């Protein structure tokens, strides 16, 4: 209580300190006067009386100091004084201040951005209560989580580890709100989905497990908040309205809470429908098909006290039960748990690896920036050694001088940090609203939150202390006597000092950054020009799903044929092919087990290959530009009543038949037992990702394996915009309500190249920042060494040294350090870029082009940075210089 009161009074006094100084002065005066009077009365002469009085009073300054310390907040007072002084010092060298602030702003900004993304995707991805106990179930042998609906029900009902298990799938539907039909992405969610996620609706109600009564029994929609906001204009009366989903009436029953976008972090569905309505939403009913794995993900909260390991054991025992009970459909089922937000480990692992790597690089950048500023600071401290010596001689404590230096460092770092955070917030804001693909509702919700600001502030302060600490030893060892006696003479020795080490470390770090960014950029360039097994240029993709306007069963193939014919008749169109799946565009898994003709037991474990499956029209290979190596493509005669046939790729032939040359004419079996004859072999291609290894694929005639998914590949030399309009008109004429996406194939491949692009972009930026840092670092070092040795260089020149020798004397050391640092960084960079191979297509670090590029880049950066100091060294006029001192 008492100390609080004292603190408050002190705070008040701090504000009114002038009055108090005056009061003390007056009191002292009065005291001395009274004592003097007393002394005179005791018989001393007036002068002696006053002298004695003052002596008796004691050290006046000491009392005053103590009085001030007692009265106000001395610490803050000194701090303020230090800050003001630091500001003055910084204003005196605006160049240094600008370099430091910009360097820090970049370094801290980079960290804030990377951390914010890390935070949004990995640390705090889902805005649901108790997300730490929420786990997704994925397969033990691969990073995917597809389940069949009956298997999901078994997992849900038989496990003893989870509160409950929810499931969902994603699909695209045609939504007719009474005016027009628009495509929209939806999540099909199990009835218990919202309850298991422990969410409360923003408006209306959610659907529950009790709403499910078999297939298509729950025609309810829960809108996502954002979609309600943009498409229903925040209409609070929306609950109870009826809309058409794929021409089926559905009732809007509620709106989900604002920050909830489903359980896949970057995927923004428009609304949620019950999973049991699969037939109406996705166009097929697979609720009872145990062999069809289409449910995207199952997940739930672990019960309190159940560890993930126990849950896995529990799930695996259900897995072996399933395997025993349904040997035809379920092979060996094992499970692992993973976070649901990034689709388990499928995206989670590469994203985590990459983001961790990126965070590490960002950390390195900050470290490099600190090393950079540290050496600049040390150089400044050396320049100021006279000032420091003088202050020491006048009685300042070393602690006080260090505090002054740290105040300056922290002030700089706060300035840099503020600019950096401000920039990164702007960048993150725009990143958050960025929709990289028109086709997918993909968004990166990476707005900074309190964590991000906290971490950024922490980094700012830490870096201030870090680079502020570099000159500490120097100050502690300052000998005021020596310095004032001899003037500021630089000790020019070959001693390897901390500053040199800092520079080497910094250059090494920058070389790592430059190396990784070059590897990434080169990988990206290569992936853009590799062979995909089709030729996306000059091809327009038009896609739709015929279920959206109500086509079913037998009405689908005739409509598809009519569409092909309509588009073919557009002038300038060379060929039109149809496929139910466009390579590197559609996304998702399309594996199907295939067996050799001799297998009798068609268990999944006996499968000869897991083949990517396409349903295509006869002209597809022409339109896509896929080379037919042997045999024939399909004709429209490969219909329902003709013998089943397939065209396979080379990898399929190698896996199932042993060689790609003898495959034509032979047979294989599908898991339902159908024997299929191979009629042709095509080249291998990339289907899902550009980084994938060659995969077996089979192409089936669209008439024998019908699908409502429709991708028209239109090959033409016409300008894409015009052609797209013509295609749209042609299709409208057949069915005016059919929603259609049209775009050049190579543009639509953005999704597949997205990861490499983002990686290359991120690493490219890091590389540029790294390069900038090394320029400022080398520049600082070289400029400093030149300015320190001006006198020596002047003497050398006066004695007849050549330009080359002068340059060598001035900059030799800087270049030596540069060489050492670059070599170390290059080695480290090569090691680091193995990590890149996960994301970046064919990122081979031992690429000679990359190596040469890095060496060249570092050398030219060195030259660039040393240019100005070198000019200064060469323009020394010895006469002028020697006269000066």
């Amino acid at each position, binding site marked *: 209580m008492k100390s609080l*009161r004292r603190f408050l*009074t002190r705070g008040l006094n701090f504000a009114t300190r002038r009055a108090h100084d005056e009061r003390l002065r007056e009191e*002292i005066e009065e*005291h001395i006067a009274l*004592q003097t009077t007393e002394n005179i009365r005791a018989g001393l002469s007036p002068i002696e009386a006053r002298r004695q009085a003052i002596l008796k009073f004691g050290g006046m300054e000491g009392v005053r100091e103590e*009085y001030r310390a007692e*009265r106000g907040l001395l610490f803050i007072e000194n701090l303020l004084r230090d800050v003001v002084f630091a500001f003055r010092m910084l204003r005196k060298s605006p160049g240094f201040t600008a370099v430091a602030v910009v360097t820090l702003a970049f370094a801290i900004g980079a960290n804030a951005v990377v951390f914010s993304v890390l935070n949004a995707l990995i640390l705090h991805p889902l805005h649901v209560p108790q997300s730490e106990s929420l786990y997704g179930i994925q397969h033990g042998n691969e990073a995917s989580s597809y389940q069949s609906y009956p298997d999901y029900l078994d997992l849900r009902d038989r496990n003893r580890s989870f509160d409950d298990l929810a499931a969902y799938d994603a699909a695209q539907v045609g939504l007719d709100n009474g005016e027009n039909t628009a495509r929209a992405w939806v999540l099909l969610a199990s009835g218990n989905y919202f309850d298991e996620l422990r969410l409360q609706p923003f408006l209306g109600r959610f659907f529950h497990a009790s709403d499910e009564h078999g297939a298509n029994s729950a025609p309810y929609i829960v809108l996502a908040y954002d979609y309600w906001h943009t498409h229903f204009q925040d209409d609070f009366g929306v609950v109870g309205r009826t809309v058409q989903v794929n021409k089926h009436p559905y009732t809007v029953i509620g709106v989900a809470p604002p920050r909830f976008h489903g359980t896949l972090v970057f995927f923004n569905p428009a609304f949620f429908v019950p999973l049991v309505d699969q037939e109406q939403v996705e166009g097929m009913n697979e609720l009872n098909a145990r062999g069809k794995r289409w449910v995207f993900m199952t997940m739930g909260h672990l019960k309190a006290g159940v560890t993930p390991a126990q849950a896995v054991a529990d799930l695996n025992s259900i897995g072996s039960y399933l395997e025993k009970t349904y040997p035809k459909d379920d092979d060996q089922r094992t499970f692992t748990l993973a976070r649901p937000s990034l689709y388990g480990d499928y995206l989670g692992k590469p994203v985590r690896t990459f983001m961790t790597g990126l965070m590490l690089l960002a950390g390195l950048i900050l470290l490099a920036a600190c090393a950079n500023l540290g050496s600049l600071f040390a150089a400044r401290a050396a320049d100021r050694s006279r000032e420091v010596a003088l202050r020491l001689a006048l009685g300042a404590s070393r602690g006080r001088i260090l505090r002054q230096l740290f105040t300056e460092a922290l002030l700089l770092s706060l300035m840099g940090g503020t600019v950096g955070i401000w920039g990164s917030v702007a960048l993150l804001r725009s990143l958050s609203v960025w929709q990289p693909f028109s086709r997918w509702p993909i968004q990166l919700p990476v707005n900074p939150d309190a964590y991000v600001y906290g971490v950024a502030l922490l980094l700012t302060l830490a870096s201030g202390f870090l680079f502020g600490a570099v000159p500490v030893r120097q100050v502690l060892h300052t000998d005021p006597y020596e310095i004032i006696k001899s003037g500021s003479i630089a000790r020019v020795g070959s001693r390897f000092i901390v500053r040199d080490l800092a520079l080497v470390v910094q250059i090494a770090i920058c070389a790592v950054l430059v190396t990784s960014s070059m590897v990434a950029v080169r990988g990206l360039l290569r992936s853009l020009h590799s062979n995909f097994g089709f030729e996306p240029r000059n091809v327009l993709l038009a896609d739709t799903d015929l279920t959206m306007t109500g086509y079913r069963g037998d009405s689908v193939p005739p409509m598809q044929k009519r569409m092909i014919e309509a588009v073919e008749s557009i002038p300038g169109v060379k060929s039109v092919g149809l496929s139910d799946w466009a390579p590197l565009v559609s996304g998702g898994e399309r594996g199907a087990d295939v067996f050799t003709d001799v297998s009798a037991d068609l268990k999944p474990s006996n499968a000869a290959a897991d083949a990517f499956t396409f349903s295509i029209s006869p002209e597809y290979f022409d339109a896509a530009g896929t080379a037919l190596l042997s045999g024939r493509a399909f004709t429209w005669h490969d219909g329902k009543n003709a013998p089943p046939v397939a065209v396979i790729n080379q990898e399929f032939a190698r896996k199932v038949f042993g060689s790609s040359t003898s495959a034509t004419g032979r047979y294989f079996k599908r898991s339902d037992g159908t024997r299929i004859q191979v009629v042709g072999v095509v080249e291998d291609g990339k289907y899902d990702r550009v980084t994938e290894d060659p995969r077996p694929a089979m192409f089936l005639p669209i008439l024998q394996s019908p699908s409502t998914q429709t991708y028209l590949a239109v090959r033409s030399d016409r300008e894409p915009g015009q052609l797209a309009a013509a295609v749209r008109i042609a299709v409208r004429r057949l069915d005016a309500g059919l929603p259609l996406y049209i775009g050049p194939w190579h543009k639509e491949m953005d999704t597949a190249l997205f990861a490499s692009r983002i990686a290359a972009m991120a690493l490219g930026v890091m590389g540029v920042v790294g390069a900038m840092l090394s320029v400022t670092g080398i520049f600082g070092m070289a400029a400093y060494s030149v300015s320190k040795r001006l006198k020596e260089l002047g003497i050398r020149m006066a004695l007849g040294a050549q330009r080359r020798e002068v340059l060598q004397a001035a900059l030799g050391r800087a270049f030596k350090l540069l060489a050492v640092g670059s070599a170390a960084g290059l080695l480290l960079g090569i090691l680091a870029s193995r990590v890149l191979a996960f994301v970046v297509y064919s990122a081979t670090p031992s690429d000679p082009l990359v190596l040469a590029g890095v060496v060249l880049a570092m050398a030219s950066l060195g030259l660039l940075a040393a240019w100005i100091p070198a000019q200064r060294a060469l323009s020394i006029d010895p006469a002028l210089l020697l006269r000066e001192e």
Partner: protein
Amino acid sequence: MKQKTDVLQGTLALMVLKTLDVLGSLHGYGIARRIEQISGDLLAVNQGTLYPLLLKLEQEGVIASEWGASENNRRARFYRLTREGRKQLQVETQDWEQTAAIIGRFFAAKAEDLS
């Protein structure tokens, strides 16, 4: 000659309080003088140190101060005990007496008392 003992801060504070208790309102010089007199010049206050102490006590609220006129008719700061200060003085006096008594008994003790 014996060196004059340095006065410990805490003791000095107690002396200040007691002085004000006995003599009422007093200026800084008066307090210093008084302490010097009573301690028989044994405790020569390094007089200046009194002022930071007075400030501290004032900030703690045990004494209060106001301007007044000194004996040679100049402006001087007069200090007086507050009610809180009186209470504290009581408590500290008791404490001090207790401590002094214990120490006294300790020194009075002879070897046979302890056996």
